[in-house]
């Protein structure tokens, strides 16, 4: 990983289209400004990571039998009054 030291007001340029500015640093938090084209998706990493992990779980842990069981349960819920 490239590690650079920046001060508030300073910034970085990534490629031709992305500019990062350190806006403020206080109480252990850093406020960052990002300018990027609209098509570039920007997420807080912990959120992105959690969604990614959930997708990985959702993609591989089930079987066709599970779908049958769960579907039957859902239908049973619906007929319950």
């Amino acid at each position: 990983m490239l590690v650079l030291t920046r001060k508030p007001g300073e910034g970085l340029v990534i490629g031709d289209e992305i500019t990062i500015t350190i806006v403020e640093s206080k109480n252990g938090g850093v406020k960052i400004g990002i300018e990027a084209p609209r098509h570039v998706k920007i997420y807080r990493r912990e959120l992105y990571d959690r969604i990614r992990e959930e997708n990985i779980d959702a993609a591989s842990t089930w079987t066709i039998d599970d779908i049958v069981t769960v579907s039957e349960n859902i239908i049973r819920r619906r007929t319950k009054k």
Partner: protein
Amino acid sequence: MKKLVTRFGEIEYSKENSLHFPQGLVGFENLHDFVVMPNEKNGPLFWIQSVEDPEIAFVLTDPTNFFLDYKVVPNEMEMETLNIKDAEDCHALSVVTVPESKEISLNLAAPIIFAPGTNRAIQVILENTQYQIRTPLPKVEEMKPAKTKKAKKKQAQPGASN
């Protein structure tokens, strides 16, 4: 008809029952094409199988089956990716996680927006949302009335119940 060998065995598909994710899904940005597999049982679940990776398949559902007032509106950029002009030309789907307990959960924090007219879909991450990544199904006694497609436009009250 094309054939595909998956972890569930061999499946057949054609262009009509395939779904294109121009940007892939979160963590699966390299997977763009999926086959839509109907549920052989009744009920609101169905699944999509990756064409590119036979190991990868997702269970999906229309979340309004369980959460009547759930709605995701795409932004301009997302509409462009879906190749639609009107935000009404798409609707949300949720990725379903099926744990060993079979107590399924819906990922309401990262819905899939699906445009039936163009067969395209994207997964979006909702920022600053109350919705949870693992939202359990509502308890049976809290279940909202079963909806029809038209119910969405009626703006039913979130708390309404039978």
